């Protein structure tokens, strides 16, 4: 590109959406392959989808905005309980409405956690996030009249989707429903992270001082992103409630939060693709290893994680993307 006198040297628009089309196609292919390869294991794949939504949501605040949190399941669990309580206590059993209620519940939880967690920075932020998840957990435990406490919330029986597709014993409907939700969320999030707002968030992660020197509000932007993140996690939680028909306290647990972070790091932060790949890898390995060795599976998972962090610090997707990039540059 020559630096001419006029501004005709302006480069053309980046074709980033082409990569997104490939990504969407890859999700579809993987979804169809999963359906036919593991017809008896659709429940596991469906659980994967719910967790993927949680990890995607975490990627928004951690990967794109640089907020360290170990309390992100608060958003997921709030969505699950919101949808579950609406169904079990208020008779709202229309699945799409339940998902919407879950999204609102998650967004509210996102607003509350965002306001609290963003008071701190670094280590203080991490500690606040841990406090948040324990408070949410305890609140759900104490409000057993609504949440069922440690027994879990049961009695959720969603109607057929759109009045046509009934939830079957093999979990086929739930699986397809999940894939549709996931694709929808993924496309919307790809649009979001490429937007000016997404760019501002990436800027905040890299240098918040520079962003405020541009006259933008760091705090307000982060809180907005937290609410969006809550919407996504809430959809995930609500989907989990719809597909499993129970909500347990573990959905609001520290363990759930920490595992989501591990999955994100495993896949690679800040790309959304990493969130998907990390979840598949973690849940799949967990399933495989716990079947092979039910006593020491956590040790094996831990060892694998150390290997990834040491040898592929950008995560599975991040490392692969770097290798492809290097190959392309070298090829030119």
């Amino acid at each position: 590109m020559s630096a001419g006198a006029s501004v005709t040297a302006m480069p053309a628009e980046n074709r980033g959406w082409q990569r997104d089309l490939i990504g969407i196609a890859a999700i579809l292919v993987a979804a169809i392959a999963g359906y036919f390869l593991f017809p008896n294991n659709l429940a596991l794949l469906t659980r994967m989808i719910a967790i993927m939504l949680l990890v995607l949501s975490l990627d928004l605040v951690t990967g794109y905005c640089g907020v360290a949190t170990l309390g992100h399941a608060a958003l997921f669990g709030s969505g699950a309980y919101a949808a579950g309580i609406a169904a079990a206590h208020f008779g709202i059993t229309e699945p799409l409405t339940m998902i919407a209620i879950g999204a609102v519940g998650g967004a509210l939880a996102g607003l509350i956690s965002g306001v609290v967690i963003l008071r701190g920075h670094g280590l203080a932020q991490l500690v606040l996030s841990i406090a948040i998840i324990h408070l949410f957990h305890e609140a759900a435990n104490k409000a057993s009249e609504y949440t069922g406490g440690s027994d879990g919330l049961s009695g959720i029986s969603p109607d057929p989707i759109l009045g046509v597709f009934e939830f079957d014993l093999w979990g086929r409907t739930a699986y397809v429903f999940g894939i549709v939700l996931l694709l929808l969320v993924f496309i919307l999030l790809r649009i979001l992270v490429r937007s000016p707002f997404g760019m501002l968030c990436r800027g905040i992660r890299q240098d918040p001082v520079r962003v405020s020197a541009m006259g933008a509000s760091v705090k307000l932007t982060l809180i907005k992103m937290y609410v969006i993140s809550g919407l996504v996690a809430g959809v995930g939680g609500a989907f989990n409630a719809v597909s499993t028909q129970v909500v347990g306290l573990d959905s609001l647990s520290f363990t759930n939060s920490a595992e989501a972070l591990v999955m994100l790091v495993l896949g690679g932060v800040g790309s959304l693709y990493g969130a998907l790949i990390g979840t598949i890898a973690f849940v799949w390995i967990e399933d495989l290893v716990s079947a092979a060795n039910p006593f020491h599976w956590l040790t094996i998972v831990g060892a694998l994680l150390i290997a990834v962090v040491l040898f592929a610090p950008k995560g599975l997707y991040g490392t692969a993307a770097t290798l492809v990039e290097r190959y392309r540059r070298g090829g030119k």
Partner: protein
Amino acid sequence: MSALFEVDHLQKAFGGLNVTRDVSLALCKGDRVALIGPNGAGKTTFVNLVTGHLRPDSGQVLMGGEDISNFNPMKRVRAGLVRSFQVTRLFAEMTPEEHVALAILQRQGKSGRMAGSFQAMPDVMRETYEILETLNLTALGRVPVSEISYGQQRLLEIALALTLRPKVLLLDEPAAGVPHSDTFLIENALAQLPADLAVLMIEHDMDLVFRFAKRVIVLAAGEIIFDGLPVDATNDLRVREAYLGGYANGSAA
């Protein structure tokens, strides 16, 4: 001409150490002022006080007669008071194109948009490349900042400040860290600043100061000891003593 930007009796102490002592100064449209002083004179503290990153113990900062002393840094930027940083503060993984476009979107109040891409906005792209062009950065438009030279990063830093269309620009050592052979790049960029912009530059490179500034303010131990023409600064006894030393003697000879 009435003052566009005023600092009125600014005071700041860290414990028993008075780092800013009763500092007052005013800038008018089109001013080119250099703020100099030996290390530890309180120059960077002064910038931080003015931009709202530090709270003064007393005194006021005014823009166009309006008291902005209680504004946070973000609101001061929006009021037209923009700074550059002594050590570049850029987004390492982002490209110059993205930096400038983000600053344009922010200025236009569009940085909160959650759909669309700046590359699909012709007016934003046109302005982005106009600005990159004036600073000779067009060819680097799509290279991540971490891969461009420090001198070019300094230029981008100036580009960002310009993009925000400030009324008053505080340049905190724009040539710091740039190899001497590349200082002319910075100087060319400074020569292209809009004529009606008021500029206050903090700088150590005396050649640059004396070529750029029409007025020099000397800060020593937190106090203004000189405010006037550059030529007079080199002849002022207190300034020589506090700071210039050999340089003043050298250039007078």
